[in-house]
C-alpha cells in the first residue's frame, strides 16, 4: 500500500505506527487487568508496551496481497502434482514413511500453534505483539492446511496417512511431539512465546524444516518441497517475532532474566528431545540422504545458534547447560531411535527396515566415532535375521521418560553402553526421566509433569482398548486391540517395508508408468 498524506508520502515505519498503534486504548469502564487477565501471572514485568519494535511491518492488505500470490502458486503445483501422478516421482517408496511421520506428528501441531498464537494475540496488553501473534496464528492454520492438502494425494495411494489426528492423540511415539505442544499451550502467553516463538521457531526451526524439506527435494517429493518453500517466508516472519519477543522481555526489566533463562533451558532441551525423531528420519528414512543429523546439528545449532547466543549474552543469557551433552549425543541419538522404531515396528504407523550395505557405509563415514563401534553389528545381525525369516519385533513395551515421553533408550553421555536413567520423588511416587535435562525439567514443575498421559502406562492400565473389549476373553491379544484403538491397520500401516503394500503398489504403478509389458 503506497500512501500519501497531503504531498508527503508516509514512510513504512510511520505508516505502520498509524495503522497499528493507537488502535487500542487504556480501558476505563472495565479494568485493564480484567481485559488482559493473563498478563501478569507468570511474573514477567512489562513497563512500556510501546517499546515493542515490529520487525516486519505488514498491514492486512499487504499480507493478503503477498500471501495470496504464494497460495496461488502453491495450489497450482499441488493440482499439477495430483493430475500427473506426481507421487511416482519419489526416489523409492521407503521415503513415504518420512512424510507419514510428518503428517501424524507435525501437521496437527501446526494447528495447535495456530490456536496458541491466537491466544497470545488476545492476551498481551500491547497492540504491536498482538498483531504480530495474530498474523502468526493465521500463518499456522495456513501451514496445517497446506500440509494436509499437499499430503492428501499420498493418502489416496499409500498407507499410514489415513487417520492422522486420531493417531496423534493416541499413538505412543506421537505423544512426544503432542506433549511438547500441550506443554506450551498449557503455559501462559510469555512462556508460550519463549517456548514456541523463540526456542522452536528461531533456535530450532532449521533443524526441523531443512531436514524435512530438503529430504523432500532430494527424494522427488514435489508436493512437500513446494509446500516447504512456500511456508518459508512465513517462517522468516515468525523467527523475527520470536527474536523480538525475547529481546523485548529482557530489555523491559532485569527481573525477567532468570525467568526467561529458565524457560530457554527447559524449551531448548524439550525441543532437542523432540528432534530425535527428525535425526532418525534424516539418517535412516531418506533413501537419498541430504546430510547427517550430526552435520545438521553442527551447522544449524553449533554455528548459527552460536551467533545467536553470542548476541543474547549482552542481556545475561547463557547457553543452556544441557547443550554440552548434545555435542556427545549428536553422534548417537539417531541410531538409538531407529533401533527402537525398528524393533517396535509392529506398533508404528509407518514401515521400518534395516539399511543396506551402501547406507551402512554412509553411516560409517558420517559417524566415524560411533556407528561401527556401537551400532553396525546389531543392525547387521537384525538384517541377517530378517533375511532368514526371523525379522525381530519386541513383544513387550518400553518405559517412557516422564517428560519427553520417548522410550528410555538414551545412554549416559560418558558411556554409550549404559542406559541413562534418572529418577525423582514427588508426593510419595517415583518418576523416571531419560537424562539430566528431562530430570531438571521435571524437578522444576513436578505438579505439571505428573499429569502426563504416558501411552505405555495407559496401555498397561487398560485404557487403550476399543470400547467393549474383554481382556479376560479366551485368546485376548492386547497388542492387536491397542492397534485397533489406534486405528492402525495391522499388516498395512505397520511392520517391515519388505513385503508391505506400499512397496508392492509403488513398484507395480511405477512399473506400469515406465514399461510396456
Amino acid at each position, binding site marked *: 500500500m503506497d500512501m500519501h498524506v497531503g504531498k508527503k508520502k508516509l514512510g513504512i515505519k510511520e505508516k505502520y505506527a498509524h495503522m497499528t498503534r493507537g488502535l487500542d486504548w487504556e*480501558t476505563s469502564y472495565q479494568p485493564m487487568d480484567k481485559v488482559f487477565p493473563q498478563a501478569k501471572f507468570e511474573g514477567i514485568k512489562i513497563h512500556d508496551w510501546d517499546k515493542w519494535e515490529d520487525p516486519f511491518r505488514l498491514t492486512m492488505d499487504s499480507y493478503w496481497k503477498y500471501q495470496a500470490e504464494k497460495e496461488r502458486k502453491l495450489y497450482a503445483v499441488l493440482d499439477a502434482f495430483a493430475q500427473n501422478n506426481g507421487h511416482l516421482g519419489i526416489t523409492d517408496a521407503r521415503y513415504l514413511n518420512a512424510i507419514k511421520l510428518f503428517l501424524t506428528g507435525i501437521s496437527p501441531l501446526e494447528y495447535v500453534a495456530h490456536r496458541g498464537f491466537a491466544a497470545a494475540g488476545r492476551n498481551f496488553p500491547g497492540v504491536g505483539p498482538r498483531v504480530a501473534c495474530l498474523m502468526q496464528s493465521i500463518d499456522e492454520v495456513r501451514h496445517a492446511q497446506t500440509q494436509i492438502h499437499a499430503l492428501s494425494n499420498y493418502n489416496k495411494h499409500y498407507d499410514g496417512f489415513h487417520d492422522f489426528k486420531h493417531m496423534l492423540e493416541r499413538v505412543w511415539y506421537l505423544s512426544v511431539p503432542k506433549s511438547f505442544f500441550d506443554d506450551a499451550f498449557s503455559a501462559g502467553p510469555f512462556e508460550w512465546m519463549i517456548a514456541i516463538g523463540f526456542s522452536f521457531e528461531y533456535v530450532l526451526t532449521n533443524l526441523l524444516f531443512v531436514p524435512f524439506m530438503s529430504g523432500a527435494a532430494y527424494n522427488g517429493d514435489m508436493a512437500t518441497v513446494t509446500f516447504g518453500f512456500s511456508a518459508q517466508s512465513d517462517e522468516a516472519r515468525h523467527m523475527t517475532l520470536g527474536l523480538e519477543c525475547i529481546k523485548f522481555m529482557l530489555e523491559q526489566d532485569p527481573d525477567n532474566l532468570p525467568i526467561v533463562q529458565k524457560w530457554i533451558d527447559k524449551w531448548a532441551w524439550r525441543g532437542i528431545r523432540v528432534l530425535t525423531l527428525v535425526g532418525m528420519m534424516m539418517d535412516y528414512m531418506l533413501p537419498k540422504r541430504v546430510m547427517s543429523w550430526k552435520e545438521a546439528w553442527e551447522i544449524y545449532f553449533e554455528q548459527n545458534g552460536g551467533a545467536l547466543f553470542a548476541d543474547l549474552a549482552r542481556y545475561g543469557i547463557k547457553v543452556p547447560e544441557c547443550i554440552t551433552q548434545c555435542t556427545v549425543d549428536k553422534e548417537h541419538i539417531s541410531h538409538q531411535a531407529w533401533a527402537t522404531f525398528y524393533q517396535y515396528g509392529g506398533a508404528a504407523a509407518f514401515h521400518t527396515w534395516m539399511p543396506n550395505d551402501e547406507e551402512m557405509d554412509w553411516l560409517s563415514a558420517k559417524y566415524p566415532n560411533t556407528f561401527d563401534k556401537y551400532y553396525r553389528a546389531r543392525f547387521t545381525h537384525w538384517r541377517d535375521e530378517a533375511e532368514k525369516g526371523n525379522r525381530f519385533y519386541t513383544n513387550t513395551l518400553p518405559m517412557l521418560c516422564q517428560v519427553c515421553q520417548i522410550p528410555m533408550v538414551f545412554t549416559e553421555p560418558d558411556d554409550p553402553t549404559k542406559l541413562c536413567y534418572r529418577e525423582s520423588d514427588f508426593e510419595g511416587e517415583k518418576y523416571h526421566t531419560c537424562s539430566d535435562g528431562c530430570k531438571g525439567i521435571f524437578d522444576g514443575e513436578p505438579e505439571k509433569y505428573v499429569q*502426563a498421559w504416558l501411552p505405555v502406562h495407559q496401555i498397561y492400565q487398560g485404557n487403550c482398548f476399543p470400547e467393549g473389549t474383554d481382556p479376560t476373553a479366551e485368546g485376548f491379544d492386547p497388542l492387536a486391540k491397542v492397534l485397533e484403538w489406534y486405528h492402525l491397520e495391522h499388516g498395512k500401516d505397520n511392520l517391515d517395508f519388505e513385503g508391505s503394500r506400499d512397496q508392492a503398489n509403488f513398484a507395480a504403478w511405477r512399473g506400469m508408468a515406465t514399461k510396456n509389458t
Partner: protein
Amino acid sequence: MQIDLRTVSIKPLRHTFDHIARRFGDKPASRYQEGTYDIQQTDIFHYRPMWEPELQLFDKRRTKVQMKDWYALKDPRQYYYGAWTIARARQQDAADSSFEMIEERGLAGIVPEAQRKLALDILVPMRHVEWGGNMGNSFISAYGYGTAITQPCLYHAMDHLAVAQYLTRIGLVLDGPDALDTAKDAWMNGAMWQPMRRHVENTLVLQDWFEIFVAQNLVLEGLSYPVFYDYLDSEFSANGATAISMMTRFMAEWATETSKWVDAQIKVAAAESPENKAMISDWVKQYRAPVVEALTPLIHHAFGNKADSVLDDMSAQFATRCTKLGLSV
C-alpha cells in the same frame, strides 16, 4: 516427459482421510473439508492449562451453548486459509485502487466540508470499535471448540483489523495524522462515544466465547453495519461525497458477506435445542439494548431529523433477521 497413463488405471486405495470418510463417505473431499473437519484435538491432553486448570486445553465447557457436533457450524463460504486469502486479496486490490485514485488526484479535497467532518466524526473513531471486534474474535479463535467455528472467527478478527486500517487510512486521507488523535480523543472523552466504548469494554471481559459471538458478530455488527455502510453511505453519495463511499466499499461488501456466515452459525446453533435457542435469544436481548443506546447519539449526529426513522428501520431489520434465524427476541 509426457506419461500417458490413460490405459493404466492407478486406482487409489481411498478417496480421502478416514475422519472425513466417517462423516461424508469415502469419496473425494473438498479442500475446505480436508482442512477443517476434525483436525482440532478432542480427547486426550497431557496437562491442565495453567491459566484455567478446571478445564482442558480444548474444552466444550467454555460456553453454555451445547452442540452434539460442533462441526455442524459449517461456514457456507467454505473458507479455508487459501480461499479466504485469495478472496480478500482481490477485494484489497479493488480498495487499493480506489484509495490510490483518491489520494493521487486529491479527490478528498472536493468532498463538501460537512461530509468530510461527518466522516471524521463517525467513521474514524469506529476504528476502535473494529479493534474490539478483532479482540473478541481472537478470543473465540483461541478458546472456541471445533475448527468449523474457530477458523472463520480468526479470519473475521483479521478482517476487523483490515477494516480498522481502512478507517485509519480514511482519516489520514481526509485530515492527516491529526485525524487519528482527534478520533482517539473523541473515543476516550467525547460524550457521543462513551456508551459505545463502555459497551465494547464490557464485551472485552466476557468469558463465554459463544456469548461474544452473539454480542459482537450478530448484535453489534448486525445493528451497526447497515447504519454505517448502507444508510450513511447513501447520505455520502447523495451529498457529493462519493469519494468517501469509494473508500468504504470494502466494508460494505464485507459486511454483507459476513452476515451470511453469522446467520448460518446462529441458525444452526439455535435449531439444535430449545436451551440453545433460549440462551442465544437472551443474549440478543441483553446486548441489543446497550448497542442501540450506543448507536443513538451517533445516528442523531449523522442523520439529524432522519435519525428516528433510521433507528426504527435499523431495529425492525434486525428483528426480522433474528426471527428468520429462529430466535425469540
